[in-house]
Structures are given as structure tokens and as C-alpha cells.
């Protein structure tokens, strides 16, 4: 029998280097051809870098109260302050450098956002996998809970969870735990999206024969879920994760706006906006404007990336 190396039905790409393959991959190709995405990713990257490197690149450390001079408060952007220090974006009502607080604040916001999203992701993906794979009662219970959860705005749920946590944690530990409570609250408020999507994708994947092949071998169901199903449902998870990150950042801001966020001595972007909003009418526009613009830029660029990712990972939409 003369063996044909390739069937005629589908051309197989010539072998190229891994880098070249990557460069030609769908994802990269669609990225290269979307100027909005390129700009968004540059903005997002810049903001993330700015946040991560804040302790090294910020002109001041606004979290260290010892360095503050209250009399520097309300210095307008790019002008001389009481103590003769220079503040590019001015100072807030506590004499904190607005630029530095934005840098450190983004750090807090991003940390909360990323951790909360990761938490929601792990929980949602886990429950979604179980619901989609096991089906039956587990599925019914998990998805009902998710439905109820989805019908309440995340903010309301986060408020509730925040309230409960505050009730449980003794007052003296609340501030230290505030960030974690926030992460927990936002995470718990957002897991259902992941669970829903993953459940749907899992139910599709479960029907596929590669899962049957593993089941025939008697592979442990947990291993099937983790090694077979999980990698194949990660695409939509990534999309929701990205969009969820933007959402989490906004939720953190809204919670902080409602006054139930991180301590005001270590403000996040939302806390900064809450503080800045008080100066909307009094002329100190920089205290509100710069953090607000940063927040919107951050959320927008992350959203744009998520949007691109959604389209890029869903070739049908192209």
C-alpha cells in the first residue's frame, strides 16, 4: 500500500519556526490588524506598569503619612506649593501628590480587581465545570444559585457580603482585612458569569469523544475535568476574565464611592474619586479629574482588549 503523507482534503501548513507560527496565528494576526486594540493594549500596559512600578517611579509616597505636609494641600497642577515642592498634577486635600496617589491608587485598584477576578474565576470555573460535567442535581442547584445571584446587581451583593464580613471580623482587624474583604465581596459577586459560561462550554466538551476516550480508560473525573475539559473552555473564560477585570475595577470604585472600600489613607482610584467628587464645584478639578480619567482609561482599555479577545477567539464572528 502506497501511503499518502497528506490527504487531499486539507492542506497542512509548511513547517516554520515557532515564532513565525505564533506571529501568523489568528490571535496575533487580528491583533496586528486592529489599531484600536493596539492602542488599548499600550494604554493598559502603561497603566499596569505605572501601577506595578509605583514605589520606584512615583515622585512621592502618598501612603507614608510622615512625608506629607498638610499645608501643601490643594496645590493646583504644575504650580508651587506651600513647602516648595513640585507636584505635576497638583495635590489633594491632604497634601498628597495627585500623580503619586493615582499611581499607588491604580496599584490598589488593579490588585483588588485582579485578585477578585481570579477568585471569581477559580470559583466560577470550578463550579461551572462540576455543574456542566456532573449534571443532575448538582447542576440544577449550582445554576439556580447562579441565576439568583445574576439577578442582583453585583454592587448590591458586594455590599451585602461586605456588610457580613464587617460583622464577622472584629473591628480592630477590619482595616487590615478591608482589601481582602473587598476582593472576596467582588469575587463572590461575579463568579456566576464564569460558572454559566464554563458550564455551557463544559456541556459541549463533555459530549465530545475525547472525553469519552478518557472515560473509557477510567481516568479520574477530576483529572478529566482539569486536564481535558478545562484547557478547552479557557477561551471564553479568558474573555469573561478580561471584561470581568474591568467590571471589578469599576465595582471597586463604586464600593469605595459608597464608602465601604479600602481605608482612605491607602486610597484606590475609587476612593480618590469619592474624595475628589467633593471638589467638583469648588474649583479643585484636578483632584477628581485625573483619577477619574485614569479609571476610565484603565477600564476602557481592558474592556477593549476583552472585546477584541472575544472576537478573535470566536472565529465565526470574523
Amino acid at each position, binding site marked *: *500500500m502506497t501511503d499518502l503523507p497528506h*490527504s*487531499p482534503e486539507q492542506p497542512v501548513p509548511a513547517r516554520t519556526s515557532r515564532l513565525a507560527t505564533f506571529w501568523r496565528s489568528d490571535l496575533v494576526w487580528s491583533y496586528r490588524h486592529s489599531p484600536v486594540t493596539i492602542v488599548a493594549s499600550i494604554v493598559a500596559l502603561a497603566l499596569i506598569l505605572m501601577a506595578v512600578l509605583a514605589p520606584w517611579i512615583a515622585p512621592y509616597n502618598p501612603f507614608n503619612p510622615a512625608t506629607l505636609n498638610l499645608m501643601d494641600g490643594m496645590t493646583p497642577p504644575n504650580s508651587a506649593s506651600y513647602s516648595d515642592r513640585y507636584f505635576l498634577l497638583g495635590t489633594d486635600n491632604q497634601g498628597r501628590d495627585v500623580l503619586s496617589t493615582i499611581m499607588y491608587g491604580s496599584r490598589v485598584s488593579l490588585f483588588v480587581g485582579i485578585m477578585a477576578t481570579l477568585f471569581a474565576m477559580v470559583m466560577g470555573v470550578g463550579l461551572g465545570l462540576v455543574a456542566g460535567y456532573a449534571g443532575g442535581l448538582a447542576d440544577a442547584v449550582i445554576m439556580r444559585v447562579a441565576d439568583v445571584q445574576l439577578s442582583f446587581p453585583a454592587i448590591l451583593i458586594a455590599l451585602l457580603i461586605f456588610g457580613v464580613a464587617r460583622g464577622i471580623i472584629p473591628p480592630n482587624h477590619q482595616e487590615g482585612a478591608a482589601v481582602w474583604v473587598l476582593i472576596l465581596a467582588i469575587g463572590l459577586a461575579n463568579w456566576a458569569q464564569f460558572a454559566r459560561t464554563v458550564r455551557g462550554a463544559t456541556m459541549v466538551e463533555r459530549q465530545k*469523544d*475525547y472525553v469519552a476516550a478518557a472515560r473509557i480508560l477510567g481516568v479520574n473525573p477530576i483529572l478529566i475535568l482539569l486536564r481535558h475539559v478545562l484547557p478547552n473552555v479557557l477561551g471564553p473564560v479568558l474573555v469573561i476574565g478580561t471584561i470581568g477585570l474591568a467590571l471589578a475595577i469599576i465595582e471597586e470604585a463604586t464600593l469605595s464611592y459608597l464608602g465601604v472600600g479600602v481605608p482612605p489613607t491607602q486610597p484606590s482610584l475609587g476612593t480618590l474619586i469619592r474624595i475628589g467628587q467633593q471638589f467638583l464645584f469648588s474649583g479643585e478639578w484636578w483632584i477628581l479629574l485625573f483619577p477619574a480619567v485614569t479609571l476610565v482609561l484603565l477600564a476602557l482599555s481592558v474592556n477593549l482588549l476583552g472585546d477584541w479577545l472575544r472576537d478573535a477567539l470566536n472565529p465565526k464572528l470574523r
Partner: protein
Amino acid sequence: MTEPVLSVKNLVVEFPFRDDVFRAVDDVSFEIMPGEVVGVVGESGAGKSMTGAAVIGLIERPGHIAGGEIRLKGERIDNLPEDARAKLRGKRIGMVFQDPLTSLNPLYTVGRQLVETIRAHLPLSEAEARRKAIDLLVEAGIPKAAERIDSYPHQFSGGMRQRVVIALAIAAEPELIIADEPTSALDVSVQAQIIKVLKKLCASHGAAIMLITHDMGVIAQTADRMIVMHHGKIVETGTVGDIIRRPREPYTIKLIDSIPTISRTGETIAPEAANDDRAFVEIRDLVRDFELGRSAFTRLLPGKVEIFRAVNEVSFSIAKGKTFGLVGESGSGKSTCAKMIVGLLRPTSGSIHVDGHDVWAGAHGLRERRRRVQMIFQDPYASLNPRWRVADIVAEPMKTLGIARNRTEVQDRVADLLTKVRLEPGAMKKFPHEFSGGQRQRIAIARALSSQPEFIVCDEPTSALDVSVQAQVLDLMSALQEEFGLTYLLISHNLAVVRQMSSAVGVLHNGVLVESGPVDAIFDNPQADYTKMLLDAVPDISKVA
């Protein structure tokens, strides 16, 4: 016969693909005369569907006609503006798609869709259009058409829906019907009826048919002339009889050679029976019930349980080293059988013994089953985890069952297996999407062999593949059976494949094994009516007029 209905000259359809351009249809020319049935045949990717889409003007973006011309009754149509082309559709060119389940809008009644189509093209009142719709349904062979016209698509069976689709296509009396794989999604028995309806309707309404299909058998039975396409080009055209009996081009020759037939033409490919006739696999009174319409919550409540029996007391046995073919149409329970045998689904009652071990009996049976039984699936695209490398896919069974643990040992074995299924060992590092369908099915076979099984259940192993590839895979399976002394359970709706591969065969219908026995006996001298009907319905190139 002066003027052709359709005349296509030097048609080129291109798909700009990133920096590249993919030529789906390349310099294709042909003509269809009034009332003529022309078959367009080719394997997947041959450009036959794209040619049809180009004619009716439904090429999906970003594809477009890049050259050539299309004339309908002499009038050039490919360069018409979109709304003018839209007016031709349905009115002068009708189309039938492959899947009747998805071709109809699920939210509207059949009648509404018919009336809407009729009134879009003919100046009829609502009532007149409705009368015509009923007539069309009657013509298309829908019983009680006057009542059923107000039913929704989901209330029809697949075959009935395809009749509705044909009625819709013919509703405005077009001169040409393009039928794109009109029967591929249907069972054999239904397939024959649909072809008949299509031919009858077109004949009575005077429409020519452009029949696009991968199934040479369908064309053999239906078409007057045929066009063979390959890689976007026409390879050969001629009358059906000429091409099937005397193909000229090497591609056509190879294509026709690889088509299995239910008539025993030559040597059997299946290896001659080993002398050991003791039943290696023994299926006894296998039954499987499903509960219907119960959600997880309602299951908690007491109440009447409606039961559907998918498999009903099926018994057969397979001798070691032999192939048992299990045939049946969709819903006959053959896949349920397969699932019970490989351990994916617990039987309601009955037993399955492999080499004397009851595979559903406790931990022992479980162990024996996992070691001895393997499965090859229908869809090579879904049966390989797309995120795993080939090496890992093939190694999984041997690692899971502890056949080989040491890394180099695993690697050696995987390389060995890949060679056995005639793939380069270099394939190990690649992902499944880098392979064609046939190659993937070989990877799947390598995986099945990886646990050194004695018995392999093959569930429609080639039905997703093109004929030429199908032949290669079947060859490979036979060769491996010989080499390893494997026992196969071959499940297929394709009678020809079963006949070619099996030594014994069973026919399943509605969960019941209506007939079983040696393959020649069943095929040449069927006893059950169902088997006879099935065999009669099979389109076969040997039946060419």
C-alpha cells in the same frame, strides 16, 4: 434543447485570506440544459458547494467571484447588482441545503414560510398562496398537507422537513434547482425517497437540477451527467455511465476505486477467519432504558416515569480476530450499544462478556474492560483533545493503565505506534489541528492501540471522511487487525463499508436486532423486511443505469 439554462464560463471564486488569496473555484466552465440533472461530485474542499453558491449569488464574504461569467438562459447574472440578483433567487434559481433540521426558521409555521416565499415571487393573494402551498406540500409527499401546513418545523421528522424544503425551493417555479448535498444528513431509507421527490418535482415543474454531493452513489442513481471536481477545478465531465464505467482521469479512477460497494465484487478485505471460533465477545440480552422528560428537580418528586427503551434485548457474539458489523439508521440504538460495551453507559439489564469476563461486574470487570476494550470514534475532530500534543494523546492510555511509566519507554512506544499507523514519529510534537481528517483518525487509532487492547469498538470510524481517505483508513484497520489479532465491532450506517470489512453482521432497528448472521448471507439473502428495504435503498454506483 437550444439554449442551456445555466452556463458557467471560466468561473473563479476567491477568498482573500489575510495576506493570501485562496482560490476556491478555479476556472470552472459547464452548462446545464433545461430539465437536465447534473451531478457535481467531489471531496470536501473540492469547490463544488462554492460553485453552487456562486451561481445563486450567496457566496459568504469575504469570498467573491473573481473572474468568469455565469449566464442564466443566456442572460449574464454574475455582474448584476445585489438586489437584481436577489430577485432571481427563488424565482428563477431555487436551492436546497443539506440539513433540513436547520434550513427552516423554527419560529414560523411551514405554511407561513411557504406563503411568504410564494407571495414574494408570484402575484397571488394570501388565500391563493396558501392553496398553492398546500398543493406543493401534497406534491412533495406530505400526508394530510392541509392540516399540517400550520405546523411548526420541529413537528416534522427530518425527511418530512426536507420535503418541505424542496417544496419551498420549487414554490416559485424556478428554472434551476441547486441541491447542495440534499440527502447527506438523512438516513439511507429516507435518502432514496427524497431523491425521488426531488427528481419528480423538478421534472413536473420543468426545472433543471444541479445536484452537488460527495456521494457518487446518489449521482449514479439520479443524474444524467456529472462533473467531477477536485481542488476547485473540474477534473472530468461526462455522462454518469461513462465516467463511472470508464473514468479517464487518474483522480477519477482513484476516487471510483475507493468507493466500497455492497455488492461483493472482488476479494474480501477482511482477513479470513482464524480457526478459533469460540465467541470472544459475548453480548447477551442487552437492554437500555432512558427516562424521559425529567429534570433534576422533578426527579426528586414521586410520579410516573416515562421510559424509552433504546436497546431492546440485543444479543450477538464475535469470534476472536473477527469483525462484527452492526448496521442501522440513526436512532436505532447502535451507538447506545457501543457505549454500553465500552463502559460509558451502564446497561439496564443483560451482560457483556469479553474473553469470559463480565465487563460490568465490579472492579474486576472494570479492570478487564479497561485493559481489553478500546474505541475509535466517528469524528476525528472531536475525538482528539485539541489542546494536547499528539504524543500526550497517544500516551494517555498507556500511562493511565500503567503499561509504561518510564518516560523514554513511553516515548518509544508512542513513536512505534505512530509508525504502525503510518505517521512520521515527528508528528508527536504537533497538535491535532495540524493534521487532516484522515491523519487524525490514524492518531485516534494509535491511541486506541496504545493500551494494547484485544477488542476495539469502531463507531462509524470513516463516516466523517472523504471516500479516498475512508479507503485508506479501512485498509489500515484491516492491516492492524491482522497484525495484532484484533477483534472489531464495526458500527456503521454505511452498508458498503460493513460488507467490505465484516465477517458477520447484525441489523438494528428501533433498538431491536432484526437480523444477524454471516455477512454474505445477510446481504445476499436478507430475511427481515427492514434489511431488504435498507439494502434496496442504498444508492450504489454499481446500479448505474
